[in-house]
């Protein structure tokens, strides 16, 4: 370094910290590393907001246009499944938060326990979702593949009064297009989440995240909570449209 700032370089910086193995070489210290990781995760969640935002925007427009179709479409979903899934996800968010807490307090066993519970709850969510999708397939509600507006013309089982004229019944396709796109993308995020969690679990069993290096667990927690938040909005928007009718 022939022509550098060496003259002005701080004498500190390299001296006194004890280089834990997980401190990456380009960070000055752990605080900086952890701050960078958290901030990066938040920025990634920002992109996720906009990713789902495009679909929420479409939802808002079509709900205004085709309100009766959205009501009928919503009525054809199982509210018990939606509520159960919301409950599962919220509990899994809680268990994940507890997992992060366990990592923060460096307790390996509780961390592993909370991770397993979170994984099971997430898997339970996907099972319920799969059941619902199967149901919709049987009922011919999948746009493009086997859609038929029949049920919305004659009235659904739960809401026999939901009789739409043909043109509006056809518009339930828009509702179901958005339903499958939104829940599909959400489920994809859940699957990615569970896979990541499984990976983290293996590392955590070896004691990776209870030695003060909690950023991966913390960031995964942020991701998991974000996926929960998306569902918190999907639930009223898709399942709870005008249930009283």
């Amino acid at each position, binding site marked *: 370094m022939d022509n550098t700032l060496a003259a002005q370089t701080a004498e500190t910086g390299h001296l006194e910290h004890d280089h834990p193995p997980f401190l990456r070489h380009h960070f000055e210290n752990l*605080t900086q590393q952890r701050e960078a990781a958290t901030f990066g995760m*938040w920025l990634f969640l920002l992109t996720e907001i906009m990713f789902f935002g495009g679909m929420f925007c479409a939802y808002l427009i079509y709900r205004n246009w085709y309100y009766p179709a959205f009501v009928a479409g919503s009525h054809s979903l199982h509210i018990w499944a939606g509520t159960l899934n919301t*409950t599962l996800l919220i509990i899994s968010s809680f268990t994940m*938060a507890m997992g992060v807490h366990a990592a923060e307090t460096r307790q390996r066993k509780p961390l592993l326990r909370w991770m397993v519970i979170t994984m099971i709850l997430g898997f339970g969510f996907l099972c319920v979702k799969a059941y619902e999708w199967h149901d919709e397939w049987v009922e011919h509600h999948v746009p493009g593949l086997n859609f038929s507006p029949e049920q919305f013309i004659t009235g659904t089982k739960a809401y026999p009064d939901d009789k739409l004229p043909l043109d509006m019944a056809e518009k339930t396709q828009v509702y179901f297009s958005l339903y499958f796109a939104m829940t599909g993308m959400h489920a994809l995020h859940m699957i990615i989440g569970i896979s990541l969690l499984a990976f983290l679990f293996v590392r955590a069993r070896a004691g990776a995240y209870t030695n003060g290096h909690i950023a991966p667990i913390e960031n995964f927690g942020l991701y998991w909570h974000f996926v929960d938040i998306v569902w918190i909005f999907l639930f009223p928007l898709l399942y709870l449209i005008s249930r009283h009718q």
Partner: protein
Amino acid sequence: MDQHQEQHHAHHLHLPHGPSEPTHTEFHVVSPKVYLLVGTALLILTFSTAAISYVDLGVFNAVVALAIACLKMSLVVLFFMHVKYSSRLTKLTVAAGFFTFLVLITMTMTDYISRAWGRW
């Protein structure tokens, strides 16, 4: 909290890590009690939003449903995601996300809403 921040800075005073700006995170460990409380509140809100949807409130059904969803989101963001205890930068980041999302929605809606007004 201020005190805590000071301690944090004092602790790292000898380490040069970027220019000092009031955006640095202090890492706050939230007590499990808070998580339990928040989780319970979220569950209660979930059941109540499902129940309220069976009550005819007119246009307010959608408003209430969204308000409850926003409340739930705030709880998750503030406590589960630690934003309440995070730096201003994190808060700003979250706000920027919602702001851009609102720009997308409102600016698109200017078109869709005013289309119904007719030509001029």
